[in-house]
């Protein structure tokens, strides 16, 4: 599909001059960039507004997994080092914190720098649109 379109473009461009060709290529690039940006934005938007049930399942399982892993590690440390019950207490609380961190991360509140910059750019684009 893609390759056949490219072939068409080259065939038509072959007759014209070198300058016309490069100009045409630049134009095509600009158009493609625009389409790609729109598609990416749409993809991000659809990701963020995916069905609420799925998102709730995702967030709660992230949280529960954190707490479970913390409790598991605490129990194992207690068994190995005989520190019962302090290993369980400390690691369960740490697991709780890790669970909250997981939730924040998958809800997209703690995001890395690139994503933040990208989002600000999106907001600006939205305003200019």
């Amino acid at each position, binding site marked *: 599909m893609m390759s056949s379109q490219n072939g068409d473009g080259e065939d038509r461009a072959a007759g014209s001059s070198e300058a016309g060709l490069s100009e045409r290529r630049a134009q095509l690039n600009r158009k493609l960039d625009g389409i790609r940006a729109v598609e990416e934005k749409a993809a991000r938007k659809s990701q963020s507004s995916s069905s609420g049930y799925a998102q709730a399942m995702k967030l709660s399982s992230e949280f529960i997994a954190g707490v479970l892993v913390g409790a598991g590690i605490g129990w194992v440390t*207690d068994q190995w080092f005989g520190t019962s019950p302090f290993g369980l*207490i400390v690691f*369960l609380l740490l697991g709780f914190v890790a669970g909250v961190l997981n939730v924040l991360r998958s809800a997209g509140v703690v995001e890395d720098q690139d994503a933040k910059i990208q989002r600000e750019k999106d907001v600006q684009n939205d305003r200019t649109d």
Partner: protein
Amino acid sequence: MEAEAAKYIGAGIACLGMGGAGIGLGSIFGNYLAGALRNPSAADGQFGRLIFGFAVTEALGIFSLLVALILLFA
């Protein structure tokens, strides 16, 4: 009553505390939703505080889970 049986009953009673945390979480998210519907433009900015309230409330629930787990395993 045997000590083992008392332990299991105690763990069950300790888990009731999780119910309190559940009520609290319902109240937090319900109020957030009510506020967000009144002023949707301010909702995104308060998401961090929502999660903060969630964490603090859930921490108290986790304490009761902790007591139950200690009774069962420690």
